[in-house]
């Protein structure tokens, strides 16, 4: 786990925090009910792409921050993969210093407005909140994080561009998703001249092509990118490290280090009959067509299958994003098919709840075994095997086993397979001497994120296989700290 080596911006011993703690008893605080974030009504939101969650008002945020007991040994911090000083930012919200709250977040998180929206808080910080021990709802840490970050964005003056330093050491980044963006920001702040290379025609990686607008508006991601540009970070689109330019090219161009954050691009399929029928596609393909390519919108040429009866296979966030997108694209029936039970679903609880509100049906304990097509090769039905839960597997979840002979056939005209991704093989294949793990991930030192190739660091899903935005960002930060100290020590 990563340690914060920076000085806390809001130490618990500060007089103002002491005062806040004394201002109210624990009993009074715990009597306050958890804030409820307002959201768009389900029947309206399935007609458009607007962000579902509307955020907290300042009054709501201050009241929610008041619930936090400011524990002497805050467990929420240990539940956060990057150990954000959670009570530090929350207490700043309580005292009304929203700018300082955002500054505390920024000490550890490059993209708080993103993480406040997409982190699985119920499995991380909020799961360790002291309120849990009292059988009460945890402090809404995610809501508060989003509030502080959005406030910062709302009131902040445009960042003044930093003039480029011609003598700055040049660093390259492959990939502009969460890991790449967080690394770029960290290095730019340390005075390096950073260039980020992106394979696609838009910056932001999975934040743009993957996560839909209704969960994470592009404007949030764009604002973060503008901030990085003001810090002097250069973005080059349509350029694939390992293809358009080689690692050797980068060295010859004067780059002293490379951070590879090329993500987990490769979609997995199940290898069952009929999977290549027309109308069966990966969630990556479906979401990329809709989110990145604008399929279905006026003025965009990219086509997409508009299913009336959509089946989405999988129980993760990407499956929820896909099924909710299918509803918005006009599917009258949109069904999640998941081989375990709802309790084992990896998706955020909120996404599952939102999907249900939007009329998504759930067929848990079902697993596709075959797709059936019509005479033109279009999928027309799926055969689903009923499952039951057996013994726990290596993930600790009870593994699903088929119920012999119990197979149902369900009509469908759009199947979105969302059963995971593998690391993108382009860079691992293209750089000689780069050690690659069994599943295609780049092998790195888990502390420094340095690979087997000197001065080549890597992080995010290309190292982890498939993880979360916050873990990818944490990798970017750690790699930046390690690369910086390596370059400064002249140990090259």
């Amino acid at each position, binding site marked *: 786990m990563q340690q914060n080596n920076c000085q806390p911006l809001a130490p618990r011993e500060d007089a103002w925090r002491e005062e806040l703690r004394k201002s109210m008893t624990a009993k009074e605080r715990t009597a306050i009910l958890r804030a409820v974030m307002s959201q768009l009504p389900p029947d309206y939101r399935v007609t458009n792409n607007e962000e579902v969650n509307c955020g907290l008002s300042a009054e709501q945020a201050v009241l929610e921050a008041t619930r936090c007991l400011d524990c002497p040994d805050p467990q929420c911090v240990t539940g956060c993969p990057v150990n954000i000083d959670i009570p530090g930012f929350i207490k700043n919200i309580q005292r009304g210093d929203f700018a300082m709250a955002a500054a505390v977040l920024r000490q550890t998180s490059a993209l708080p407005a993103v993480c406040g929206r997409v982190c699985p808080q119920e499995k991380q910080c909020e799961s360790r909140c002291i309120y849990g021990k009292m059988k009460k709802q945890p402090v809404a840490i995610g809501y508060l994080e989003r509030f502080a970050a959005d406030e910062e964005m709302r009131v902040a003056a445009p960042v003044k561009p930093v003039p480029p330093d011609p003598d700055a050491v040049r660093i390259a980044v492959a990939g502009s998703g969460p890991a790449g963006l967080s690394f770029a920001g960290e290095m730019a702040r340390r005075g390096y001249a950073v260039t980020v290379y992106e*394979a*696609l*025609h838009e910056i932001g990686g999975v934040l743009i*092509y993957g996560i839909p607008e209704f969960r994470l508006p592009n404007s949030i991601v764009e604002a973060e990118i503008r901030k990085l540009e003001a810090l002097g970070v250069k973005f080059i*689109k*349509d*350029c*694939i490290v390992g*293809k*358009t*330019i*080689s690692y050797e090219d980068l060295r010859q161009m004067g780059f002293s280090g490379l951070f590879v954050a090329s993500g987990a*691009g*490769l*979609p997995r*399929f199940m*290898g069952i009959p009929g*999977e*290549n029928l*027309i*109308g069966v*596609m*990966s969630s*990556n*393909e479906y979401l*990329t*067509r809709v989110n990145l*390519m*604008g399929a279905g919108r006026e*003025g*965009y*040429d*990219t*086509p997409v*299958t508009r299913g009336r009866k959509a089946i989405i296979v999988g129980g993760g966030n990407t499956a929820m994003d896909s099924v909710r997108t299918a509803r918005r694209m006009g599917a009258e029936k949109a069904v999640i098919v998941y081989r375990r039970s709802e309790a084992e679903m990896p998706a955020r609880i909120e996404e599952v709840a939102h999907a249900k509100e939007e009329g998504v049906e759930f067929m848990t304990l079902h697993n596709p075994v075959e797709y059936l097509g019509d005479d*033109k*090769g279009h999928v027309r039905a799926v055969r689903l095997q009923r499952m039951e839960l057996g013994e726990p597997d290596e993930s600790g979840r009870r593994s699903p086993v088929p119920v012999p002979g119990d197979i149902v056939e369900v009509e469908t005209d759009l199947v979105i397979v969302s059963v995971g991704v593998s690391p*993108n*093989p*382009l860079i691992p294949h293209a750089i000689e001497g780069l050690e690659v793990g069994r599943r295609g991930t780049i092998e790195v030192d888990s502390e420094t994120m340095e690979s087997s190739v000197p001065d080549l660091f890597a992080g995010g899903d290309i190292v982890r296989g498939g993880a979360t935005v916050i873990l990818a960002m944490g990798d970017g930060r750690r790699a930046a700290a390690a690369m910086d100290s390596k370059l400064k020590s002249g140990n090259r």
Partner: protein
Amino acid sequence: MYKILDKEHFSEHVVKLVVEAPMIARSRRPGHFVIVRVGEGGERIPLTIADSDLERGSITLVVQEVGVSTRKICALNVGDEFTDVVGPLGRATHVENVGTVVCCGGGVGVAPLLPIVKAMKQAGNRVVTILAARTADLIILRDQVAPFSDELIIMTDDGSLGRKGLVTAGLEEVVKREKVDQVVAIGPAVMMKFVSKLTEGYAIPTMVSLNTIMVDGTGMCGACRVTVGGKTKFVCIDGPEFDAHKVDFDEMIMRLRSYN
């Protein structure tokens, strides 16, 4: 960026574009393709690179108008720009001296075939090139492949140029006449399917370059998947070239109609 330097009409619906893309020109090898986009609402379209010019920093693309996006591409004029060109993508052609290689190109498939013809010749092979099209007007790049071909055979469906008949007729004649060590076929899926069927009967190793539907072209979406030897492969990163005898052409032809 990505400015059109030259444009030439090969026929009414087939256009050659020379595009400024210095980094791609430098790193591309025979068999590689690029993804291009015209306009902010444009589709990402894969096109195999036909040639490159290091001095001009350009690549050559040959495009046939078949739909909305290719119509936009063919409407670009000298001085216009592509919004995006990314590459080189895919794996480069495996080229070695095997003896005699027959290179078959159908329609605009001759464009991606050109760099392979060149490379096969430069590797020391005896190269027989067969160009095929419906009619004389659609035979392209004849003068460009000729210098690298020990023998050039032209086949047209209507007999308006060269011999009358399909590419397979020309190929079968060569195969019956002399020992052929490898066949390369690029063209419409149906043409590649029948070339593959023919050479399978003669047990001649055959390579095809597949032009499936793609979105990102970097392994991300899986739209380009084909079944090769019973396994699902992604054309963009595992291909675009495959052992023809293992490709499930019927499935590929079906998938090409996904959005028709």
